């Protein structure tokens, strides 16, 4: 069947009343929680994962995907109304969005944000639909060395761009890998670091780490700040942008969609970089770049579009290669494995109802987001009034009870506690969280593929470097590792050239 035929099949799956309801639930929950400062999409998806366990995988993933891209829109509410991004991908929306709000144009900013999210989200899903099948077809020929190289590249990419300091990001990734080695070695059956505890034989559940780092630790940091936002009141009757404003934003919609999607596809780059890059491109493309930062409407449309398109892009490596490109995607990968699905190139072939059902639901979800968000945005904005004294403890309890409910294991709660402590210090000292969770999810698969590859090559590590696909992937990995060094060399060279030019002029 061709792509359109499969898409039609996907719609027949996504349009069942249950899946439609789950999609609606996902985008509403995503928007509401995305609007709460201090709880990003990763935390939200992790927190709500237990609700999907034991249920139909397609419906569950439809809801999780809805939370993921709904959360991206929800983040714009806090950015625009209180100048506090709900998650890092909404940081650029603050710049012009908050200025628009201060000028009494908050509603227009939220309106254009909803429209940009819809346009870019839809373009992103088209991209996902077009790129995923050939990429999956190509990846069918991958063997253990290619998978190992790909996973290492994905991990290195998230690490290289994941934080303020590459050294700290590397430490975080390595710490995640070390946690991933806990449990029975799948190839030899030898227990590692289990200390005779049967609970540890299956390894450390990634969800305990995700809840601790993205959920409880986030509350610990927020509760210290005594967060009390000053909310700018919007005139909701002005929510719909004028035709002139829409015309001005057309370029921003397209640039945000395309750049956002392409950046989202790259492992590690994600929605945050997409929104930063799109904002910079939009400023360059503008006839009045000097006005950016003072409340320019394109400055809201471009990054908001980019972060939504990037979520669709992030699903490309996740669904076709089984490689998550971000912390949230890593949690979704863990969810797929918990549902009993094997993410990778054969997913589309073996579970077409799952893949195409999720793709079709994203079209529906984007329409639902637009329909819901435009008239209901004043209601969603009320979420900002929820006091943190009520929200914080509920999030903590949700994380703890959620983890308990997955295996009925009180031991897992101790793991949440330990990861909460680690997560708190990581946040305080600027160690990024996503590499830990990503490494925890990818670690066991990486190890298995590495050992299988070495079995094939009789212990020759050249198998990772001299094969046509694995070799370039390893080269990219090394480039990611050396990037800070290359960058500083380039900067030094540019600096000395500039100094030489000045001397010449003098």
């Amino acid at each position, binding site marked *: 069947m061709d792509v359109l035929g499969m898409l039609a099949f996907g719609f027949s799956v996504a349009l069942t009343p249950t899946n439609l309801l789950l999609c609606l639930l996902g985008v509403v929950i995503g928007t509401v929680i995305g609007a709460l400062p201090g709880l990003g999409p990763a935390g939200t998806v992790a927190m709500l994962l237990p609700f999907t366990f034991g249920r139909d995988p397609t419906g569950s993933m439809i809801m999780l995907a809805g939370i993921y891209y709904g959360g991206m829109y929800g983040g714009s509410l806090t950015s625009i109304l209180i100048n506090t991004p709900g998650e890092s991908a909404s940081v650029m929306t603050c710049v012009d969005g908050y200025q628009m709000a201060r000028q009494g144009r908050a509603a227009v900013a939220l309106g254009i944000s909803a429209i940009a999210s819809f346009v870019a989200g839809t373009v992103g899903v088209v991209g996902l639909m077009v790129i995923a099948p050939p990429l999956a077809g190509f990846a069918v020929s991958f063997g253990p060395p290619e998978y190992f190289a790909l996973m290492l590249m994905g991990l290195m990419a998230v690490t290289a761009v994941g934080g303020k300091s590459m*050294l700290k990001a590397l430490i975080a990734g390595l710490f995640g890998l070390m946690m991933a080695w806990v449990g029975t070695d799948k190839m030899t059956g*030898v227990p590692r670091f289990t200390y005779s505890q049967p609970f540890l034989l299956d390894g450390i559940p990634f969800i305990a780490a995700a809840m601790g780092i993205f959920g*409880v630790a986030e509350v610990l940091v927020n509760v210290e700040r005594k967060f009390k936002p000053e909310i700018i009141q919007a005139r909701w009757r002005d929510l719909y942008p004028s035709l002139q404003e829409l015309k001005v934003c057309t370029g921003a919609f397209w640039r945000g969609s395309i750049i956002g999607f392409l950046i989202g596809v790259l492992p590690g780059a994600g929605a945050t970089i997409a929104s930063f890059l799109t904002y910079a491109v939009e400023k360059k493309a503008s006839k009045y770049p000097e006005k950016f930062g003072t409340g320019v409407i394109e400055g809201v449309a471009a990054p908001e579009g980019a972060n939504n398109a990037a979520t669709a892009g992030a699903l490309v490596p996740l669904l076709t290669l089984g490689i998550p490109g971000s912390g949230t995607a890593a949690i979704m990968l863990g969810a797929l494995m918990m549902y009993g699905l094997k993410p990778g190139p054969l997913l589309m072939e073996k579970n077409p109802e799952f893949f195409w059902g999720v793709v079709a639901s994203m079209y529906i979800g984007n329409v639902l987001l637009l329909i819901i968000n435009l008239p209901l945005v004043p209601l969603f904005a009320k979420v900002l009034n929820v006091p943190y004294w009520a929200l914080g*403890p509920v999030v*903590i*309890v949700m994380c703890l009870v959620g983890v308990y409910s997955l295996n*009925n294991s009180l031991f897992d709660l101790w793991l949440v506690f330990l990861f909460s402590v680690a997560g708190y210090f990581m946040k305080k*000292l600027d160690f990024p969280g996503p590499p830990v969770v990503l490494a925890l999810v990818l670690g066991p698969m990486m190890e298995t593929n590495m050992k299988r590859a070495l079995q094939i090559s009789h212990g020759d590590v050249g198998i990772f470097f001299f094969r046509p696909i694995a070799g370039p992937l390893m080269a990219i990995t090394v480039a990611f590792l050396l990037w800070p060094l290359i960058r500083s060399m380039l900067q030094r060279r540019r600096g000395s050239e500039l100094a030489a030019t000045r001397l010449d002029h003098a």
Partner: protein
Amino acid sequence: MISMAKGNVYAAVVLLAFAFYYSYESLQLPLWTDVGPGAGALPTLSGILLAVLALALLLRNARKSSSEEGEADFAHWRVALTVLFGVFLFVLLAKTLGMLLTILLFMVLYTLGVERIRWPVALPFSAATAGMFYLIFEVWLDVPLAIGVFGI
């Protein structure tokens, strides 16, 4: 408040100790088998790598002056520690008291102790939260929550 550089030095020392312990434990496992790397190969490698990176973090920050990297905001650490202690108690008591009573207790302690909410608000809110979790998990999702000595 402590400087970020100092915080990094402390973190590096903890990581270094962890890396040495982890490497030592890994070395007790088989490093190589007839068919390739053994169970201890990657853990040992990771432990050594972490030790190297932690050492780099230590050396990079040990020579920095306090003002170079800004401050690590630990000004209100007591609040976070109190909440963490609450989480610790939650995990400790969940088996004995049962999940629902533990939720109720945690919510009461959090709202009254950490947030200083007046009890006429804190108590009904805590009870409502425990009730909400009962409805969601026991009734809706059919997940049995841990039962304690009081039978709930």
